[in-house]
């Protein structure tokens, strides 16, 4: 994945401390993400561990997948609260979100390993919002993420939210992950 200037799509909203066991429960870690067909399977089980009342806020009980496509979700952007991706180091977590079609997460802040895996693996863009958005944005809202402007527009609610700059990880995300980045910098043979 390389950085797209604009990401538009529906929001799926979650709360605080969404840990990697909720993002991809341990029984599905037997799939090997290095095998394309198995990579696809992770999309099916993405967010399978989120208790139903906490899935798709503010109402909850919103399925992440729509009938008709068990692998790719109709949502493109996850909006969440504090400490997204805490817990286990499993890279299967950003893999599962990527396989389910998620292009970006907008959270207050991230657990370190999830953030690093998302960036270095080039799976999705982990944006930090300047303010807490998981109490503001509703699941299903149409969002438009503008990289250059560093803004998140809510086309449904006609609101605009500020995002924190990606900072030092921007070049890695732009390159598409740590391997293409390292090659572009001559740290690895091209």
């Amino acid at each position, binding site marked *: 994945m390389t950085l797209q200037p604009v990401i538009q799509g529906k929001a799926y909203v979650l709360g605080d401390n969404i840990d990697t066991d909720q993002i991809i429960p341990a*029984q599905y870690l*037997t799939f*090997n*993400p290095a095998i394309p067909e198995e990579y696809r399977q992770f999309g099916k089980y993405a967010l399978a561990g989120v208790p139903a009342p906490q899935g798709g806020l503010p109402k909850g009980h919103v399925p992440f997948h729509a009938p008709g496509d068990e692998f790719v979700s109709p949502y493109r952007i996850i909006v969440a609260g504090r400490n997204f991706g805490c817990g286990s180091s499993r*890279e299967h977590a950003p893999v599962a979100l990527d396989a389910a079609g998620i292009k970006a997460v907008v959270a207050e802040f991230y657990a370190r390993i999830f953030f690093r*895996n998302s960036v270095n693996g080039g799976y999705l863009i982990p944006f930090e919002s300047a303010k807490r958005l998981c109490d503001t944005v509703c699941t299903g809202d149409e969002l438009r993420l503008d990289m250059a402007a560093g803004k998140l527009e809510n086309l449904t609610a006609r609101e605009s939210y500020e995002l924190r700059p990606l900072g030092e990880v921007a070049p890695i995300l732009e390159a598409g992950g740590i391997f293409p980045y390292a090659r572009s910098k001559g740290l*690895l043979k091209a």
Partner: protein
Amino acid sequence: MAGMTLTEKILARHAGKPSVQPGDNIWVDVDILMTHDVCGPGTIGVFHQNFGRDAKVWDRDKVVIIPDHYIFTADTMANRNVDVLRSFVAEQKLPHFYDVGTDRYKGVCHIALPEEGHTRPGEILLGTDSHTCTAGAFGEFATGIGNTDAGFVLGTGKTWLKVPPTLRFVFKGELPPYLMAKDLILAVIGDIGCDGATYQAMEFDGDGVFCLGIEERMTLCNMAIEAGGKNGIIRADKKTVDFVKSRDKSGKPFVVEQSDADARFAREWVYDVTKLKPVVAKPHSPDNRAYVDELKGSAIDRAYIGSCTGGKMTDFRAAARLLKGHTVKVDTFVVPATSEVARQLRTERVDGGPTLEEVFLSAGAKMGEPSCAACLGGPSDTFGRLNTPLKCISTTNRNFPGRMGHKQAEVFLASPLTVAASALTGTITDPREFLA
């Protein structure tokens, strides 16, 4: 120039720099890379994809492969993943592989690493598991990484790291007999929250730490990740050096360092350990702290003693102190972390009487094979897994929804003493009731 913390010193040396500061992005040389059956196949895939089918790892002697997660299961995919490790080990001729079904099989990687001499003060150890921070108990920088980072390290021996600020936790006094390191770390996580150390190093210090044995120090560092910590670390003392030398077959020199007197800590907490009470983390977060006496009498369905956090000899000796001569009131699962621990449970006697294993079996507990087992749920036939919405008190490290299996199960995290006391009554019980 201000002094450096222990974490900063180790990172600076591995970056070839005289000094580093929190926030610096640096490339470091890695001393040990560990992977297991859950993240190994993905890591190997990343390595082959980026360095080529015929590529060789950067240093065979620095790669350690320890299958431990999904071992005693009929799940064909899980068993296939161990085969992926086997063929990589054969292809790369890796010497440090602890294969399932052989005499070399170990079990839980974080306990196997020090047992097999792969932890040394002053080194950088990376592992594809968030509890890799356990090895900080040996005075080294140890942290968890994902498959992509691990694949990069396999090919280059290097990774980039951002130097974390260090938080210092000072424990004063000697731990009373009813408390364990698990109570200390649950108290810390309760105070700072499960994001309280995000992107930061957690250094444990004070006489309360240095009177602890090595395994208890490992428990402290093990749960640094549960506060979001990048690493947990304890400077090496004589106990550490003696342990490391008794296990290390490499004879590699290592560097014992400590934080400078004028090092900058982002924040410091001081605990008088003699004043603490047994702690429990209630569902569904390790920072949901309560004291055992507040929950006294809450019914539980199951007790679980195992994992990298609570499946070491010190943990079992503590549990056996309470269980000896008694019978458990709820299903109790005992899972030694490693084969070495399992062997010792069968040979070490309690007060010259029965072995530890005999104590557990005659108390009515069920004994499992050494592995991660139900700590993280796993395949449905995993020993001790919560397949229904049970209430479980456990010596493990996480109680997020679904962590031990069922999404509606409720997991209470506690010390082996508290778990054993609770197993005997079927309710959450203060170990002081049995230790008086």
